[in-house]
């Protein structure tokens, strides 16, 4: 019933608009020629007022919403990116304001008048060169600064970096720490089974001290090296507060390193939000649960980090080894990887 009423109101509204419009156009066409000037003048005011209204709206909201954006970048890399954004904002922002003012000012100033002629002005090579060269210089500056920071973000990973691995799947992240040896155990996707979600090759000794963490814990001011991958479809390892992201692509490993600079506790004070927490999200459409791939990220002091590391248990020692021992005890059981390997070779 309410649908019908709503639709009826809408239809009536359109009928009213059509009738008013018909009448007003009829009146306009009945007017004598000298009213033409007035009509175009009114239209010019109409368009300029809308244009300047929108310009004021966009400038005002830019200031009011500035406070609601992200807190200061929580990584060294984020600071570089923020700096470049500020410069770009300054340059494009001023061009935006100047050109929009010119556009809507011209619309009003040069609107049709009967006794005036437009100025026949077809070209001017000096002007064309000027507004080719000036943007070219401005853009060269932005390109130069951009590429410099870009290579800094993707510079070689420092040797003392903590090594972690993030693997995206529908719809969660699996985080693996390299443990004491700072080396992640090798993986092979054909080894995947219910006890070995990531397909880690347990014959690789480097895998033995690796552990799976249910949150990302990072020491402040220490470089972190993240190996990124995905099991099923493309995901994106996205850390909004650190201003960083990198695609997680099945079959094509990617990598990112960064240096967190603000601990979670410090950020709680900066944002004045006692519940503040850093998050890892997915930023590449990956299916119906894309919006819900959250992982908590904690940046802590070096001491806290060491304490936390001690509490973590190697996945190999706690889960895999006991299971293997159990299976060896039962002689008929097949090796864990065999069924999958068989399926793969069958195709």
């Amino acid at each position, binding site marked *: 019933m*309410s*649908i019908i009423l709503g639709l009826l109101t809408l239809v009536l509204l*359109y009928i009213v608009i*059509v009738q008013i*419009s018909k009448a007003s156009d009829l009146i306009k066409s009945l007017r004598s020629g000298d009213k033409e000037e007035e009509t*175009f003048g009114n239209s010019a005011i109409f*368009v300029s007022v*809308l*244009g300047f209204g*929108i310009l004021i*709206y966009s400038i005002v*909201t830019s200031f009011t919403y500035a406070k*609601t954006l*992200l807190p200061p970048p929580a990584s060294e*890399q*984020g600071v570089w*990116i923020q700096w*470049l*954004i500020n410069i*770009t*904002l300054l340059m*494009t922002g001023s061009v935006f304001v100047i050109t929009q003012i*010119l*556009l*809507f000012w011209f619309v009003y100033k*040069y*609107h049709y008048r009967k006794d*005036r*002629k*437009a*100025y*026949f*002005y*077809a070209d001017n090579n000096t002007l064309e060169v000027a*507004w080719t060269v000036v*943007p070219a210089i401005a*853009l060269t500056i932005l*390109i130069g600064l951009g590429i410099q920071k*870009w*290579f800094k973000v993707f510079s070689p990973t420092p040797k003392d970096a903590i090594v972690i691995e993030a693997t995206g799947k*529908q719809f969660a992240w699996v985080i693996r720490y390299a443990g004491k040896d700072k080396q992640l155990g090798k993986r092979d*996707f054909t080894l995947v089974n219910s006890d070995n*979600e990531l397909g880690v090759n347990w014959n690789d000794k480097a895998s033995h001290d690796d552990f799976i963490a249910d949150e990302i814990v990072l020491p402040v001011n220490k470089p972190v090296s993240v190996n*990124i991958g995905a099991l*099923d*479809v493309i995901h994106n390892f996205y850390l909004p*507060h650190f201003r960083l*992201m990198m695609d997680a692509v*099945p079959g*094509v*490993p990617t990598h990112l390193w960064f240096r967190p600079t603000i601990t979670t506790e410090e950020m709680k004070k900066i944002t004045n939000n006692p*519940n503040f*927490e850093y998050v890892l*999200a997915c930023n590449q459409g*990956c299916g119906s649960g*894309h*919006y*819900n791939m*959250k992982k908590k990220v904690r940046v802590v002091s070096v001491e806290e980090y060491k304490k936390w590391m001690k509490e973590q248990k190697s996945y190999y020692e706690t889960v895999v080894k006991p299971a293997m021992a159990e299976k060896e005890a039962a002689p008929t059981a097949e090796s864990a990887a065999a069924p999958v390997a068989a399926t793969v070779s069958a*195709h």
Partner: protein
Amino acid sequence: MQTTTVIDSPATEHAHAHGHTGHHHTETFLSKYIFSLDHKTIGKQFLIMGMIWAVIGGLMSVIFRIQLGWPDETFPILEKMFAAWYTDGKLNPEAYYMMVTMHGTIMVFFVLTASLSGTFANILIPLQIGARDMASPLMNALSFWLFFAASVIMFGSIFLPTGAASAGWTIYPPLSALPQTSPGSGDGMTWWLIAMVLFVASTLLGGLNYVSTVLNMRTKGMSMFKMPLTVWALFFTAIIGILSFPVLVSAVVLLIFDRSLGTSFYLSNIVIGGQALPYAGGSPILFQHLFWFLGHPEVYIVILPAMGMVSEILAIHSRKPIFGYKAMIFSILGITVLGFIVWAHHMFMTGMNPFLGSVFTLFTLLIAIPSAVKVFNWLTTLWRGNIKINPPSMFAIGFVSMFISGGLTGIWLGNSTVDIQLHDTYFVIAHFHIVMGIAAFFGMFAGVYHWFPRMFGRMMNETMAYIHFAITFVGSYLIFWPMHFLGLAGVPRRYYTFNEFEAFAHYGTLNKVISIAAIIVFLGQLIFLVNFFWSIKRGRKSTQNPWQANTLEWTSPIEGIHGNWEGDLPEVHRWPYDYSRDPNSDVDFIPQTVPLTEEEKKDKIHH
């Protein structure tokens, strides 16, 4: 420049002869309105199809904006209307992703590519260059009917039990390749792929036709540098389409192989539900390269026709020549060439070699130069003009405003370093909707208001056009301007709800405002549709040359005869922008068909 080549190819002769006999044979309703070979009718067919698609695509955006604005509310009314997509009054996530995917596909391909180019290339190219029809009217009709077939299949896919494609309009594999990962990647994706192959065939038939018509069928005196900028823009658009769309077909064909024949072009090392799949050696990144090799030029396919029409409309209605005619042509050429070597800026975050990223940053930001030249030339065209603000010029001015706003944020996103923060956030949505979505729609509206009298012999209602402009201009900024802030606050795109993340959830009110604005803008477009169809029947009768324009289409009989001109084709003597040339004359325009005076011949510039 003075010498003009006489173009009287056999094709023109033939069309000429045909023009005399053409209107003698009897035409049925079917041959006149449905299976017509006349470029004017085919143009209208493209326009009407585009309107139908735009309403469907717009309605989808209303549905997902309702979800984003009120994620916690239930809508039993909507459930009654779209039972398959709702559970307990709430939109299903699968349906949400289907909506965003189809909205993108429909708007980018079916409305802003097929309909925008299809309508205006068809109506304007032959009429503005003085040809009796397209080089191949049959190919032209086939182009429409292939588009129609593609439309039927794409529309049908919405009603499949597993739903239409839902992997995003960019259909990145493996999500689009493996039905296990998303219900829409089952039959829905198959139909999507088939529809797109037909669509590309349609685009190619159309594009080849436009190019050969422009090159071979210009009337006597119409040298390339006497063509209006609309024709130049449509000409380059067609070339971009011809060179880039086949690459989409190759991407699609390999995806079909991966889906159906078990090949591994895009797939490798895939595990689903604890089960390793037998794909090895492929790369999902390969698909992205192929897709964006079309996908980026595609945005210029969308925007160039709008740019061409806006250049023409601004000149006519400000009663001034377009400023820097040749600079405008060379900037289109610059955009066309650069447009082919910037595609990987959509892929900065795929883990590409940083060196490659820096090269694509360089080319991408360079494209801002020809774009800036165009904006400055439009502004100078308005400067000291005698501007008649009416529906076409209003929307052309709106286009310039939108193009500036959206173009400048391209300088942000094209810089790979800035993209590290903003990639795939709402900032990107704001950028591309303003610069290629809304701007292209403004160009299209300007074109429809301007050439409506040529298409239907009547004028559109101005009051409705003013209401339409106010709603669309203000509403579009209200929808998309705040999305810049969402993006800078880190809010990612393609989220069904933001409530799962505290970091993204604090824009609840803003999201409601955006959704309300979106609904109002959608309803505002219906005013345009009412105006359009009402004016076809009831609009004020148009005079022969209602805007006092110089170009040839306004010399062709108003009722739109087959063959376009009675008797001989018009002869062209001057460029199309002689507005207010003689300050002492009462008439402020000199049509292209008027011979040069002795005085003008001595003058070195522009004739």
